[in-house]
């Protein structure tokens, strides 16, 4: 009995980071589809979190996500990530038209990152049912889908980029580079639902150009 409870009610830091990564992957793909940034033919439906989500099948985009989100997951484990930003900008003028901020909060108090790495034998454990977490994520993704009804049309060729805001003591891996933060002049912000894995708390905010 207790064993089964353990299985259903515990979530490790690793599992939590993976969930956050999955949320980012599916959430961002959903945004790319719903905002019409890439042709709809390059998307295929996938069942996840009890939802039908359209995922890009373009090999370059798939590879991009694999690398970027893999790195972000690693940073999540080390508590290095503060925020992940999806920036949608016009291809020609490089003007930023829309920005999706995914803010990460680390729950369970402020434990030093170093001690976590050292005490790998005793990993952090959150007490939240996987089903309730998935339900929360589902609701955020649904909200993302519903934003089409108020976000302005992206009426030009647009590309996207992912910026990661990390702690200042974070090492820069190969092929990564430091850039400047991005902001939209005269922007409107809408905060979406928040979900929490009991270890990571994720806040989603969309800001777009106010016209």
């Amino acid at each position, binding site marked *: 009995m207790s064993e089964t409870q353990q299985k259903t009610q515990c979530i490790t830091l690793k599992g939590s980071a993976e969930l956050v990564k999955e949320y980012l992957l599916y959430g961002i793909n959903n945004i790319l589809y*719903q*905002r*019409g*940034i*890439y*042709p*709809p033919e390059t998307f295929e*439906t996938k*069942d996840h979190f*009890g*939802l*039908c989500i359209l995922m890009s099948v*373009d090999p*370059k*985009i798939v590879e*991009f996500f694999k*690398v*970027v989100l893999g*790195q972000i997951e690693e940073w999540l484990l080390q508590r290095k990530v*503060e*925020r992940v930003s999806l920036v949608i900008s016009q*291809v020609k003028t490089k003007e930023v038209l829309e920005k999706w*901020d995914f*803010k990460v909060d680390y729950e369970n108090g402020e434990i030093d990152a170093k001690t976590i790495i050292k005490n790998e034998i005793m990993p952090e454990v959150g007490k939240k049912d996987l089903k309730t977490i998935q*339900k929360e994520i*589902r*609701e955020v993704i*649904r909200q993302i*889908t*519903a934003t*089409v*009804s108020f976000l302005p*049309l*992206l*009426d*030009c*060729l*647009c*590309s*996207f*980029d*992912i*910026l*990661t*805001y*990390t*702690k*200042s003591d*974070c090492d*820069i891996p190969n*092929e*990564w*580079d*430091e*850039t*400047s*933060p991005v*902001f939209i002049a005269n922007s409107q912000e809408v905060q979406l639902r928040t979900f929490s894995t009991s270890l990571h708390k994720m806040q989603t*905010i969309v800001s777009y150009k106010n016209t």
Partner: protein
Amino acid sequence: MSHLKYMKELNTLTRMDDAIKGPVPRWQKKCLETSTSSAANMSLNTSRKAMNVTSANNSNNSSGKTPKKGIEIRNGKKTPSKNSKKSPSRATTPNKTPCGGDRFIPTRTTTNFELGYFKLQQQNTDPDNKNETSPNKREMQRLIGENLHGGDLSNMRVLSYQNKAPAPPEGYQNPLRVVYSQSKTPASVKASTRYIPNAPDRILDAPEIVDDYYLNLVDWSTSNVLAVALGANVYLWNAGTGTIEQLFELEGNDYVCSVAWIQEGPYLAVGTTVGNTELWDCSQMKRVRVMNGHSARVGSLSWNSHILTSGCRAGQIIHHDVRQREHLVSTINAHAQEVCGLKWSPDGKYLASGGNDNMLQIWQGVAGTNYSHPQPIYSLSQHQAAVKALAWCPWQNHVLASGGGTADRTIRFWNCNTGACLNTIDTKSQVCSLLWSTTYKEIVSGHGYAQNQLTIWKYPTMNKVAELTGHSSRVLHLAMSPDGTTVLSAGADETLRLWKCFIPDPHKKKEPIKQTSAVSCLKRSIR
């Protein structure tokens, strides 16, 4: 101490400087005197004061002083005396080059660079000064950062992967454009041999109809009476005679959320904001019973013989047996959010429910009864928005059509025996309502932005047969007359429009009439 000496020296220097310019005012002299004689700790302040005074003095004098030199040479006049009173008169003399007044000429002799440099250096090293200004500045910078970037960036790094994702192909156009544009939808309207009037047959006013996608406010009974909920009122419009009767009015801020006629007879079910489901006998204009059970508003209702199924905002579905005192047969937690579409299949075998959680659930009826199992046989998540429009095919009992909201814009067809999606079509607009024709193999859909039109589709090819425009706001609900010829659309523009779009073909006319008369005979005999 050497530093103090230097200070003294500097002060004397400034004094000497003053002496050149002319008589120093008495108060200033006094001040300087005290500064030189005073203790070391005073010297800093006083010297600063002296500095201020001298600089002020300089600026006063300079206008008179410096131009003098230049003018001297040009005019060959006498060296101006120390008296500065003369200078204004000189300024007024007509000269080629304007002197004084409009340009600033610094006086090198009076600006003490050494002192200035020393003062600057002193300010930088002074810890008191630093504390005075920088916290404000730091706070300001922090606030600017927070406003612009939503967080303090001073201890953050912004990193990005260098191999960027590829840009979309050149010449690609955002398909969402159709959602925002007013232009006609691209799919062509196929010419049909049948005549469909483009204008509505009749327009009725529907003041105060609630513009809410999630409600079901219109139903047309088999006895040709249309029930319409307008705000807190329910009106009955007899389509045969044209008479209008008010059934009732709710009190307070409550409004009617759904209406549904029983298949046979004068009973009308009404869902309200408080979560009650009321049953009205419209032949006597009397309320028969009130059934509770829901915690939030009842936005959808569907009858299956004597079972009334209701869906509520909290996501529950309840089966009420209207014959029993204990009406509550079963409660199902069907959806995570509001249930906005609810329809029993014509043979009572399946119940379809659509929710604001974008789910479409198919429930199988329990054999021998008229309510459903508490577990869905199919949970279909393909829709990307709320599923309100639901309609069962009248000639294939297991085929269901469902339409999604703004983010989805598709009509999907399902085989509920297998759970397979038979077909899907993008309508380019919010699907608010769906109705199958009983006379033709066609389906009609009610849409929102951009055209607020009704579209008639040929099934199963899904070619457009006609587009009926006229509503100035989205078409919220559709209902069909019992003879199947007329479609009623209720728009958010507070009008009800009647479209005679399914008038039977005159060549085949005899056949359906016989059929309907046969049915009505049967009905009479049952009653």
